[in-house]
């Protein structure tokens, strides 16, 4: 693949769309839990706000600063997990970590929506941490241990 197409694969249109028009950006009014997640090597900082109702992720929003990959990933992640059960959300997270490492997944079984666009990050090892930041925050927030 040429360099240009690698770049285009990284910065897919959907990704730039989430970057420019982030979904679920902001805080949750009322009762919610907040997880801070930093990428200490580059300065990205994300705060993920989650409202879990029983077993279901009712609301997921994020605030913070970061690059196009980390912020678009946060935007997509919140869209994807909202309405899912905690177990489903954590399972999707596992799938996502596989995807950015270049693993295949069963796209009939898992509906990842726009998230799938982040596949291009596999060609950019230095950017995998950007893509996973929000997901790590979500795992930390939902971790039942």
């Amino acid at each position, binding site marked *: 693949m040429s360099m*240009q197409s690698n*770049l285009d694969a990284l*910065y897919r*249109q959907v990704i730039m769309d989430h970057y420019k028009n982030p979904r679920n950006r902001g805080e949750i009014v009322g009762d919610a839990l907040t997880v801070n997640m930093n990428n200490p090597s*580059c*300065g990205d*900082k994300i705060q993920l706000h989650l409202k879990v109702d029983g077993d279901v992720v009712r609301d997921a929003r994020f605030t913070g600063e970061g*690059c*196009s990959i980390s912020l678009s990933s946060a935007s997509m992640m919140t869209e994807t997990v909202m309405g899912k059960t905690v177990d489903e959300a954590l399972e999707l997270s596992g799938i996502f970590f596989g995807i950015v490492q270049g693993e295949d997944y069963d796209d009939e079984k898992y509906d990842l929506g726009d998230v799938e666009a982040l596949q291009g990050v596999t060609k950019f090892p230095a*950017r995998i941490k950007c893509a996973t930041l929000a997901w790590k925050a979500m795992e930390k927030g939902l971790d039942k241990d």
Partner: protein
Amino acid sequence: MINVRDVREQFPILDQEVNDHPLVYLDNAATSQKPVQVVEALEDYYRRYNSNVHRGVHTLSSVATDGYEGARDKVKTFINAAQREEIVFTRGTTTAINTVAASYGRANLQEGDEIVLTPMEHHSNLIPWQQVAKATGAALKYIPLQPDGTVSVEAARATINERTKIVAMVHVSNVLGTMNPIKEVAKIAHEHNAIMVVDGAQSTPHMSVDVQDLDCDFFAFSAHKMCGPTGIGILYGKKPLLEEMEPFEFGGEMIDEVGLYDATWKEVPHKFEGGTPIIAGAIGLSAAIDFLNDVGLDDIKTHEQQLAQYAMDQLSAHDDIEVYGPPANERAGIVTFNIHDVHPHDTATVLDMKGVAIRAGHHCARPLMNWLDVAATARASFYLYNTEADVDAFVDALVSTKEYFGDVYAE
């Protein structure tokens, strides 16, 4: 004037393509490349006289000891220390400063004392002092920066007082390229009986350093940023201070007498070099110093400042690129910037696709990012082997970045 073409011949690593483009290496502030002289010196040591130093009676050990101790003499001359015992080999700048913080700072400071820093310190000249402050009850004080990111002597004078025990300052900022007035500040520190600790990680590779002229008490730097190997650096300290300090690490090599319940230490510098020392590293550093001396540090400094000037002139034509720090004639070869609306990570990724290696992030200087009011920045840093063509490739790649992100924004 540097003959860059000859210099580049000594750096075979530069002659390669990265992502289908000729490599343009502009991440020298993170680590420099190594000339063949250094690689060969390391190879020679491992092939012909690898041996432990100081303890062996056999021939190879004495050749290795000569190489290791010869490196100490070379460093002494390189920074114009008064005595060879003032040169301590450490793992790098970070370990050197931690040694001072632990062995001098913790031993000598108490509540009511102050440690004076600047907001532009690298974390390695910041966090050790935060820890000293926590352990001793001493307070941290900061010299406020000027609007262009420089340190004024007046501001230093206004911050340093009779409570100040330590002033710790970076010689050249790894973000802004600012060259700080160490000599003047050291004088003020000494007027108040404080000691002056200097982080020389970004100055020593790029300009001639004279620790006696600066009159600093401690001075730290790393070999890997000055054409030498990773894993070795220098702590320079004035001998009476080093003598009064306790060792930082304990074990073999650094002891004089050992009983079951107590031990005494060797003389300086050996009491600070516990364990098998960094023999290959010292030998590689020695070769790096020879190399830099051959080229000439004054010429290296001029060359880099010219490149910084050339880069800044070109960048100034772009309204949407902001460069941080003082004008080129007041800085070393470091240019830190941001493209509006493009995160520095994204900039660095696009540049990498064009073969241009830069750094993006907070550059281990978080407080300075806050001072600049940015989350992160991109940084190009030059060395003796960089050329105007490198700068052109860099600026072209920035233009592509703007176009690329302009397009994705426009869609």
